[in-house]
């Protein structure tokens, strides 16, 4: 792995944690909160700090869906795929948005404008199907209204 210039802010972040494997997940959470995702550089830095292999760190991080490995878009779109949303056609909404944005769930558009995610259940079943744009819940969505939401956010 190539040596990486550590950004001062990142160094401060890491210095708050003891070199103990049990700190791995808290560090990764902290890094993601600051950077929005876990970059290759970040994984190498965290591994160096804890004296682990980057492969090991990636293995742990990729187990958890909460960790992202691609930078988030300016606008984040989540499509709920829970049971209630599912039976009311959230699959079609996801498909339509995916087609419109040209990305699959878990990806970010090349211009870093939009990222698309699925959530297992957002807990807003009474409003199903829901699409969440930047933490704002939009209820009773259709493929068409979801696409309009995207257009409004452009």
């Amino acid at each position, binding site marked *: *792995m190539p040596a990486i210039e550590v950004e001062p802010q990142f160094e401060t972040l890491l210095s708050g944690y003891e070199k103990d494997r049990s700190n791995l997940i808290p560090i990764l959470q902290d890094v993601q909160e600051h950077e929005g995702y876990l970059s290759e550089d970040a994984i190498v830095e965290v591994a160096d700090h804890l*004296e682990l292999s*980057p*492969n*090991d760190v*990636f293995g742990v991080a*990729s*187990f958890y869906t909460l960790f992202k*490995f691609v930078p988030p878009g300016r606008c984040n779109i989540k499509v709920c795929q829970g049971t209630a949303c599912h039976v009311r056609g959230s699959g079609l909404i996801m498909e339509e948005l995916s087609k419109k944005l040209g990305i699959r769930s878990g990806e970010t558009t090349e211009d870093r404008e939009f990222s698309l995610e699925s959530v297992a259940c957002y807990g807003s079943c009474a409003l199903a199907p829901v699409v969440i744009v930047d933490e704002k819940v939009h209820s009773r969505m259709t493929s068409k209204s979801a696409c309009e939401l995207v257009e409004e956010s452009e």
Partner: protein
Amino acid sequence: MNSFSESTMDTISLTIDNQQITTEPGRTVLQAAEEAGISIPTICAHEDLPSYGACRMCVVEIEGMRGYPTSCTTPVSEGMVVQTDTTELRKLRNQVMEFILSGHPDSCLVCDHREDCEKYRPNVTKAGRSTRCGFCSNRDVCMVRNYAITCYERHLNLPTLYCHYNLERDDPFMERDLNLCILCGLCWRICEKIHGSPAISINNRGRWAKVGTAFNSSYVDSGCTFCGACIDICPTGTLTDRYARWYGKGNFGWETVCTLCPEGCKIKSTLSDNKVVSTEMISFDRESRICALGRFAYAQLMNAPKRLKRPYIRDNDELTPVSWPDAIDFVAKKLAEYEPGQCATIVDSANIRENLHLYRRFTEEAMQGRFASVPAGDGFDDIDDESLKADLQAGKIKAVVLGGDYLDPELLEGLDCLIVLDYLPSAATKRADAVLPVAILAELTGTFRDDAGEIKPLKRAVDAAGEARPEWMILRDLAGALNRNGWPYDDINGVTEDITNDPAPQPWPGSPRDSLKDLPPRFRGAYLADTVPALKDVGLPSHPTPIHPRPTTGFKILKHEEVVPNFFLITIEAPKIAQYARPGQFVILMVDETSERVPFTLADWDAEAGTITLIIEEVGRSSGELVFLSEGDFIAHVTGPLGVELPVPEGDTIALGGGCYGIGAIYPIARELKQLGKKVITVLEACSSYTLYMESQFREVSDEVIIMTKDGGKGMKGGVQEAFTHLVDRGTKVDQFVAVGCTFMMRMVTETTRNFGIPLQVALNPIMVDGTGMCGACRITIGDETKFACIDGPFFDGHQVDWDELGSRRGAYAAEEIEAIPQDTHHHEKLVPITTSGGCALDD
């Protein structure tokens, strides 16, 4: 710890399967059982690794404990009562196996023809993707298979899924097929144990969990040193050594010492048919780790196709092979012409002490010349004898005995006499007056002094290549021919005893076992990567090799796709062939100008569009070359249509059976017979539902389609023979059977239908070369007549075929077919992973 304290150490008594057992505290139930000779099935437990508890095979019942604890993670305790083999446990283990097998291509394990198949097909098929044991390089040693055969019922309740991960074929030395992985974790666990910081890990989770590196980087960039431990510990065919994988189980040779660098690591070799096919670390611990050369290059150097195998002398300006006595005589006479001081010997210090000792003695006593040994891994420039170099350049040295590829062309030209002792041709052997082939590495018995001064014994594992001999023996004979006294060495022991105070070699700068950057680039002066091309991919230098350009004209590939795992549909622009093609005919093609000629049956054609379609199953080098092509590429030669079309069968109802590539082959026949107004019953045989293809096309041209799978995952369980029997049993009047597929299937169909009184046509597939009846390679016996499959066939009366002869002729080049598999890295975007989590598709 002294013996007194050991004898008073506390012990633990427990009962396992009604047997009283005493063991040490801290042992697991599994270990205690094994000590007592009680075997508990397990896949993820390994004696060299801590308990892991992943596979759940080793479950036991323990009185007073709830549920079924895994014996590998449960420590023994006083008075414990354990049962390891109850009806309930067997049921549980069978369920565990079933879970493992539902995600591991396994149709051979539940196939009713497995025993017969393995009898008639003793060697596994060299497939790109393994879709079953018979197509898996690990068949003979697979742990999953062993348990499945011994403890698993031949019945599947769970559907068989195939992951559809891309093959990872871009690695320098490994082939990885993660579709076979059972996630036992042995690979990354052993990596962590040996290297501290593992180069691999299990990434993602659930059905996307898979072994890999961070961000799917190549193993070269992940910190992997290519010690091979992950391959050697993998219980399945997931991780394999590209070079060794098809040689089968092999036997362990004994331990020896790698002499490629002064570290002199201990290694053990795997032998197959008097050939070292791989070398491994002697045990799975940090101290025993070896480098990429010791693990992957060693065997390839020994088996280099260009090995010098006979002595040569220059006769009328040409190197001519001669006998050893003639060669020795010639060299002795040649060397005798030179005055003391005009001679020198230059050899690689990466050699056994006995060879080095006699080189030195021979130089000093018999030649009275100068002796230089080049540090291991180095070249001529690194000789620290400046006066020798200067004398060579000044032309003062007239005759040189050269133990490798050391002198540049100018120096070589300036010499009067050059005797080369080496194992490969080089610039030096080209110029030499005599070339004497030498034994290397595991072909040698002797001793090696490592850089720490330790003397380590080497024991010969295999005979030397061809007529090659150990250097000490050659030098002894040369000294004898020069009438030197005092060389009474009957065997190597005499030489060993003679050596006093030989210095330890200089340590190699760096640590090849810990860093790819530190690998020595040379052996006997020549770049290792020139002989082992994969070493280029780990950064070792090599001489440029001529690249054979791919053809830019010829037969254009219009469509190229993997229709089901390991089967490729390829559509080629070939208007003339398409115009004249008839059902049952085939083509012979050559991918490149230098490729082998290989026959493939036409699976379809379109006279109007001027295209033909083939179904290619990757089973070795030539089919592999086709698989690596893409749309838009050209095939150098396509010859056809060849062979005789299937004669139109008499009667109304024809049953066609196709298996594997034969499914494609029977399609034009079904279409033609349908057009002629026959009743067509098509039987499609596949090992599993996910290897079945073209079903919808067949439905259009058949009156009935019967699907047969070996695992029963779709249609009926069994093969073409069961389907034909089924037709007869249910009273369908069939006038003719036709079967196309592997030799084994056609043979089984022949035996099954022998007494049905219904004629059977089979399409025979012997080795073919020219396809026009000239070479005779495809000779077969039908009844008591000799026929050529290429011009008399491919269709013959199955009941008249001499199947034993056909099988033996088809297997005639089994060893060469393995050797022919290219060892350079395949760079092909279709075959490397695309996404971190993708690639896994459920098949329905």
